[in-house]
């Protein structure tokens, strides 16, 4: 028998291994913890290099209810969406999300202007209720995030959570807090490999270890610029595996928040009869956005709809068969 015909790509570097959550022995209180990254191959190509960990899914939970949800989301999350603690518990326990991503939208001056104490006690309440690590996101308004997030970091000290997002123009305050409190950080760049790299360098220069940084490449939803982030991720990951340490961080992709903004995920069947069932369409819009990101190299997906989470979880299990 002739030798097997093969085109094998071997790489010199692995992605950094990022640890999420700390157990009691490690100084935290999580009973479920995760490792991500550390792969030596492009997505799901097990024959080329080790891929030790499966990508994980974080359920998107908001501190203030969103009144702009399409009908399907509003119905399927009815009963929990007004209470972030119940919401998180439902997603982690029933929907099968691996962990919870808490977005502190309510600290934004225009959306509730909650203060550090509110945010801190919500984070602690969540940590009490769920066993998983948390991802904690600010509201995107730099000054307010710099005021609130360091406080939340401090009251959750030692839990090894993931905080975000820092950007090139505003990274020092939150990064310093996360370094001090033993957390990981999300570095956000606007669909740009060079800025992603530059920001990782800046963050590590002030003392954040490289294995505590995750890259947010700023994805677009399916049909809304998804292909830009898709290619940026493929480029960054190829460069990382070929030796660029400063791009060798795991990716986090905010799938749910993007997918559910898409018109196709929102419009009712009555408005667009040719597009079919609205609930299923929205779920599939989110699931396929997630699948494309997985193929581009995503390590953490944040997702919203319980059914979409179940579909993508099962798909990940299938993709991880080696």
């Amino acid at each position, binding site marked *: 028998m002739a030798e*097997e015909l093969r085109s094998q790509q071997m790489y010199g570097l692995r992605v950094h291994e990022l640890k999420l959550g700390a157990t009691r022995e490690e100084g935290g209180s999580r009973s479920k913890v995760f490792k991500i990254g550390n792969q030596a191959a492009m997505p799901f190509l097990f024959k080329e290099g080790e891929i030790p960990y499966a990508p994980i899914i974080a359920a998107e939970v908001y501190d203030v209810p969103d009144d702009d949800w399409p009908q399907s989301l509003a119905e399927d999350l009815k009963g929990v969406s007004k209470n972030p603690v119940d919401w998180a518990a439902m997603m982690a326990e029933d929907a099968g999300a691996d962990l919870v991503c808490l977005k502190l939208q309510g600290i934004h001056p225009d959306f509730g202007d909650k203060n550090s104490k509110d945010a801190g006690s919500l984070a602690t309440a969540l940590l009490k209720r769920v066993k998983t690590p948390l991802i904690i996101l600010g509201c995107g308004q730099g000054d307010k995030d710099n005021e609130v997030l360091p406080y939340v970091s401090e009251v959750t000290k030692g839990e090894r959570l993931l905080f975000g997002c820092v950007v090139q123009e505003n990274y020092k305050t939150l990064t310093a807090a996360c370094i001090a409190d033993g957390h990981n950080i999300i570095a956000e760049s606007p669909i740009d490999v060079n800025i992603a790299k530059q920001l990782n360098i800046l963050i590590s220069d002030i003392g954040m270890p490289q294995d505590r940084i995750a890259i947010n490449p700023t994805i677009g939803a399916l049909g809304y610029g998804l292909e830009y982030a898709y290619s940026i991720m493929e480029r960054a990951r190829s460069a990382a595996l070929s030796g660029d340490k400063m791009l060798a961080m795991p990716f986090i992709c905010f799938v749910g928040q993007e997918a559910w903004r898409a018109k196709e995920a929102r419009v009712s069947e009555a408005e667009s009869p040719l597009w079919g069932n609205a609930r299923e369409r929205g779920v599939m819009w989110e699931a396929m956005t997630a699948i494309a990101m997985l*193929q581009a190299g995503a390590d953490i997906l944040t997702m919203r709809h319980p059914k979409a989470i179940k579909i993508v979880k099962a*798909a990940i299990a299938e993709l991880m068969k080696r």
Partner: protein
Amino acid sequence: MALSGLEIYKLLPKTNCKKCGFQTCLAFAMQLAKKAVPIDKCPFVAPDVRVILEQASQPAIRLVEIGSGDNKVSVGNETVVFRHEEKFHHPSAIGFLLEDDASDAELNRALDEISKLQFERVGQNIKVDLIALRQKSGKDMFLAALSKIKKVVKLGIVLMPASLDTLKAALEFCGEERPLVYCSDAALLDSFAGVCKERRLPLAFRKPDMNGFSEQTKRFTQQGFSDIVLDIAQNSTSERLWQLTQARRSAVKKGERSLGFPTMAIVETGDEYQAMVQAAAYVTKYASIIILRSRKPEYILPLLTLRQNIFTDPQKPLQVEPNVYTVGTAGEKSPVLITTNFSLTYYTVLGEIEASRIPAYLICVDTEGMSVLTAWAAEKFTPERIADTLIRFELGRIVKHKNLIIPGYVAMMSGDLEEKSGWKIFVGPREAAGISSYLKNL
């Protein structure tokens, strides 16, 4: 795989005799590499070298055409592994698996559903491409189903007959069309290939691994038959992705001709959701043809949208022509909005204005196809450019007011723009979704 000028030079006589019209063999080689001159210009190329050069000028992955006329689908001819290296050329053809033992009612319903699967997105018509008919009953049933399909839908056809006899009868039926012939029985492969070669039809078949494909395609090409599609077998999704990646990479990176053919993935996973997300993975990773069972529009629209995204040329984002577009019955008092000429931005904004039912003018500034924020960062959506655009499109003659609504994301330029243009600037919402209510509350 294409040879470089230097590689071609090494194969030339290197005498610099100038018969080809160039000063040196090297100069000629460089032009050959660019395909700017035919090889015949040099009378001294050795016959074996000519064969090498001709082969090298073939695409790494063969172009295969299915169907004819309006239904023609081209697959293959891909040149890269990652879309950022150039682009993906031919969108995966999406098709549906039907079986001839379906009842009349079932078949009618299926065809009715399939014929509705076309959608308008960002100015493009996106639609499904193929119907695959698999033989499970006798020849007559197969032919009856085929005739019904041909009557009802205008799509390319994949014939999956179980015998040579059925194949021949079905081909009589197909006339001038060029169906893709699929051979599911290894024992029939040679006879099917014989028929396809004679009638110049493409043939798809399955082998367990790359070696199996390679040996088979070498045999076929030696016989002068190379309209081949590789059907990558259903194993685990990751194994199938591995094989799809292997075929693509071996062909375009290593010049492995025996694997340089379009690929096919038939998705028969029972769970409909899993089947759809699997198909999505194969759109991103290298399946030239994907055959499915599910045909619900709520699943097919996302799949076709994904295909549209992945097969967009990364160097040329879809653009619309910079211009003033009239929405509804706009007149001299109607509001004026401005945005970029990135087609996704344009169509999203346009859709929201239409939804508001308020007639308006929408100006597209030439930002070379960049979205609002990107264009602003790249200085393609600046107060100067916007002011120029207002003059160039003579907005002063179109409306009798000087109020301009700009995207919320560029609120910071309002003052500067007001000064440069002399128009009064209103800051619209950041997200297109807010436009409709913004216009209603003007």
